[in-house]
């Protein structure tokens, strides 16, 4: 093969390796944005940060059905040993607790193995204590029965504090 072609291909190779690096970084950028939102923030700053994040992330399209209340889409751990964890919510009940088979494993000495259940009903999420030792609290009131959880309400289990976010 002509030496010129080989030389060109040699530089093309170096360009291609860098191209791969750049393609990966380009494809990554959205994921890096997600990383920003999973950052641990104090409970008070949560709302402000969310608004900023929405403004930056070109705001999700408005609900076509014009629903007044926003639906919860993720469960965010604000305080406690697993702070910063974010769980996308699907249309299925979640088991919260220290047991390894729990949907969200709370590495919290003050939580029971199967501590509480978070489940969707209609358009709302409900929280139910599963007879835990130390109780489940919703905005500092202990749960005695299943109760609806609104966005931004603080769910406390042991030392872990969580909230639902859109």
């Amino acid at each position, binding site marked *: 093969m002509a030496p010129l072609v080989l030389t060109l291909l040699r530089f093309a*190779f170096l360009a291609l390796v860098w191209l791969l690096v750049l393609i990966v970084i380009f494809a*990554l950028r959205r994921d890096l944005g997600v990383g920003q939102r999973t950052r641990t923030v104090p409970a008070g700053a949560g709302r402000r940060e969310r608004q900023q994040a929405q403004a930056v992330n070109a705001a999700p399209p408005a609900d076509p059905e014009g629903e007044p209340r926003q639906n919860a889409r993720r469960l965010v751990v604000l305080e406690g040993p697993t702070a910063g964890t974010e769980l996308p*919510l699907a249309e299925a009940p979640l088991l919260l607790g220290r047991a390894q088979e729990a949907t969200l494993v709370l*590495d919290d000495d003050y939580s029971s193995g199967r501590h509480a259940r978070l489940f969707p009903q209609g358009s709302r999420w409900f929280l139910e*204590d599963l007879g835990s030792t130390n109780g489940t609290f919703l905005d500092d009131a202990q749960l005695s029965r299943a109760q609806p959880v609104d966005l931004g309400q603080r769910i406390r289990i042991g030392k872990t504090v969580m909230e639902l976010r859109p």
Partner: protein
Amino acid sequence: MTSMAPPAAPAGGSGRASKPVKVKPQRAKRNLELFLMIPALGVAALADFLVSASPVAPANDTSWITHILVMGLLGLGMNISLRIWAKYADPFILPIVIALNGIGLAMIHRLDLGAAKATTVATSQLLYTGLGMACAVIILWAIRDHRILRRFTYIWLALSVFLLILPLVPGIGREINGANIWIKLGPFSVQPGEFAKITLAFFFASYLGSKRDLILLAGKKIGRLQFPRLRDMGPMLVAWLVALAVLVFQKDLGSALMFFGLFMVMIYVATGRISWIAIGLVFVAAGGTFAMMFMGHVQRRVHVWLDALDPTVYQATGGSYQIVQGLFAMANGGLPGTGFGEGKPNSIPLGNSDMIYASLGEELGLIGLSAIVMLFLLLISRGIRAALGARDGFGKLLATGLSFILALQFFIVTAGVLRVMPLTGLTTPFLSAGGSSLLANWVLIAILLMISHNARRPSTGGGTLSTQEQGMIDRHLKVSTDSALDATPDSTQRLGGETS
């Protein structure tokens, strides 16, 4: 994340007429992975083609076609396996690893062609790549959920110690290039230490995952640092002794550094205490002083490192010939490199394994080398991302540990080649020739992929609740209405019995 995702399947099958909770599930991104595989395989193909077209290759060398076809098919197989068993795994890990593996294969192929005596290291490297990917697929299929690995804490410790002792057993142990890190199994030489690094990561992750709070809460405070109790320092001491034993008996400085570094990183990540880093550094200093004073081969390595360009050291047997040849090669490569087949990487001893970084530096130049460093950086960052996303403490620790194994190993080798620190005999992950290393690193990647799958998977609940519980929830949902949602005492009681 995106509007292209299909709507979530309704759970449980309970008859609910009201509006469902709308969610946008995480996209699986296996097609993105497939797309990224094109430039990754392109890099591998062009590199191998340039080797085959170079002056050192015989006319009409078509082995590059075989190499790339095999790599492509293996990559496709991995992609399909991931579609089945780890749908939500990180889409960037596999293409990056395939690109690195392909670049390594091309360089080994080139060194085969340039060798005075014809060698076929590239063929066996390709074979081990296939074996490694097959192992990765088997692990994905057999384990599925990394949390299973948490159960065998002390089995992992025993297995690690066993693997590390194996090369010292007379009869099967072999000494190659002054290090006792090999065992002979029939016609093969295996490096059990490569696998021990993974089982040690399993042990550290499950041990620290369960003992973390104990280590965190107990202890005295001296100044701003909180020091742990002496008995909680036990595992630290054990890790230190293991590292020192590897250094003394196997004469393997690189592995010793890697094992101890791994433990320090994991305990720091588990506790977030600077005091552990301080204690660890004291231990390293103590171990380093001991090694410098009493161990000949460590003294020699440090001497060779500091006075590498001294002619007497350069010419001495076991001197700095290898490292200086590597420096010459990289200097010859300069910024754009000489191009495949144009340099003289065959003059570097172990140019296709320990010193492959220098060989690549000669033929690809600084531009190529920095791209390779970037690929490693991206790979490690994806591992850390999986750790951030993991929902259980064990998964977080394990993903961090495994990513740091790659980072530490890459750093220790390249720093040795570049004379930042003494050169130690470790392989460069995915680039160096070596079956054990390749196999172990593919296993490591499989576990990282598994953790990232579990981290990114939307919580459907289906896999985590027993059918009895699911039935109970369905019944509960049917009984209760939006206004009155009292949990029936019956269900509360029955579930309460299971709590700790």
